[in-house]
């Protein structure tokens, strides 16, 4: 018995990385999946893997920044599988990077269109179909860059913070329809967004990310897929308006609170164990 038996899901950015891992996991848990992506080759490969994992799946070529294409994607789910229960707004890009003064308005707008407008559109066009079946679950990929600042990622940070708070405001509106709206804040996950343009590729990123957070390994797309599965399934029936952090503990500490067996930077200022008394004591 699968955890998503009988449910129909749309996953944007399903051709690679987290979207691909989630598509395959959802298919294995009994969902029928619309794999939506700009990348046709990758999307069709995901569809094959979904089918091999025991589920139904179709590919729908989708530019998530275009309203007509989001509408077509939702229509495809209905046409192929008869209903819509889960939308995972996941497609993403790095977007405009670098010093803020150097970012062009065009690059800024394109970043917001792909990272934030797409989530608005995914919610907007999923909701009518979910109402018809008495509820649903909308999941979006935000980021820890939506809850902390990251230098050189201004457009991405702003858009992801927008996704986190759009999740909250939308959750208030659709709770009465039993449509739950949540997002996931991944930390350092080794996906093509990170390793595609990296000298050394996937392996180099794996090594770099290994020591970037308290849990001593890089994040993998499957880590996010597992959270998406929880949020898509009825196990999270009372969860809405949340930003679920899956980051190996990266955002748990202050910037000076990393490393050290004592739990933080206290290693410099404080003794390694015992009790620190009033400062006037010898």
């Amino acid at each position, binding site marked *: 018995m699968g955890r998503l038996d009988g449910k129909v899901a749309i996953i944007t950015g399903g051709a690679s990385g987290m979207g691909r891992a989630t598509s395959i996991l959802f298919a294995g848990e009994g969902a029928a999946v619309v794999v939506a992506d700009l990348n046709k080759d990758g999307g069709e490969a995901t569809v094959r893997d979904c089918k091999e994992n025991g589920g139904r799946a179709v590919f729908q070529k989708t530019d998530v920044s275009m309203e007509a294409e989001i509408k077509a994607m939702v229509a495809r789910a209905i046409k192929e599988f008869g209903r819509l229960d889960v939308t995972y707004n996941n497609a993403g890009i790095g977007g405009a990077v670098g010093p803020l003064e150097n970012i062009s308005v065009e690059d800024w707008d394109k970043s917001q269109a792909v990272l934030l407008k797409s989530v608005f559109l995914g919610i907007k066009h999923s909701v009518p179909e979910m109402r018809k079946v008495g509820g649903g679950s909308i999941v979006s990929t935000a980021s820890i860059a939506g809850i902390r600042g990251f230098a050189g990622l201004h457009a991405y940070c702003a858009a992801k913070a927008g996704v986190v708070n759009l*999740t909250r405001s939308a959750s208030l509106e659709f709770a009465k329809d039993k449509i739950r709206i949540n997002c996931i804040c991944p930390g350092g996950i080794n996906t093509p967004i990170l390793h595609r343009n990296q000298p050394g590729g996937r392996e180099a990123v794996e090594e770099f990310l290994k020591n970037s957070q308290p849990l001593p390994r890089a994040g993998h797309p499957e880590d996010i897929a597992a959270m998406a599965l929880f949020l898509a399934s009825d196990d999270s029936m009372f969860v809405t308006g949340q930003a679920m952090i899956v980051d190996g503990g990266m955002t748990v500490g202050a910037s000076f609170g990393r490393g050290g067996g004592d739990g933080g930077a206290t290693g410099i200022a404080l003794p390694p164990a015992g009790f620190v008394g009033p400062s006037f004591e010898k």
Partner: protein
Amino acid sequence: MGRLDGKVAVITGAASGIGRATAVRFAGEGAAVVIADLNAEGGEAAMREARENGGRAVFQKTNVERGEDIKAAVDRAVKEFGRLDIIFNNAGLGGAVGPIEETTFENWDRTMAILLRAVFAGIKFSVPEMRKVGGGSIISTASVAGLRGGAGPHAYSAAKAAVINLTRSVAIELGKDRIRVNCICPGGIVTPLIYSRLPGGEPVAQQFFSQIQPIPRAGRPDDIAAMALFLASDDSEWVTGTAMVVDGGLTAGSPLSRERMQGRVMPTGGFAGPSFEKQ
């Protein structure tokens, strides 16, 4: 195939409410469970229910106010089932209630001992056993009252906020041992803690809690058990230091957002333009 096959869990406060629902769910997913509680009658009933759901379970009488009792619950897990993979520090009570000036030191200290020191003790005594098996998952029941003011009594609110930040600081220390530390912030869940002293009891609590958050039903112990299962299972292998909110959307909005703004200070549709424009 269960999602906790082969794992051993200690659950405090497992005689009723959230702890009991979690014990039964964990047992059904293949875990062996130590049901730790002060309440022997409820604990033994939970044990029977866990066994009926297909898992192994034992009852261990535990007063979480006493560190040695928590140590004994951990030891019981190792003695009965050979290892420890999961501890759910869940036992709780309302604690000191009423105006801050009328809160006594005794009631304050006792509240902190049960709601906060017990979590510290649960972590402290679990870690050595979890290291032996190469990792583990520590889960604690915090509360939305640890995130906001006014969602619980003062001492309760302070203790639950402390549980959240203890979770974070310990997560940093134990990451290298692959011991994950997370907590859950339930919203309005109908449990004996809420209704045991309420005039009208459970039905009144159900009715009240069905109206306080965007999702129009009261929270159930099973809602929290499902989150505890996620955090206990390998599905959350890369999740640590988090406070997972399960509250039907209670904390997603500000108090102003609940229908009061719409139609009053903001139009109900369209676009709110520059303020100098005429409507």
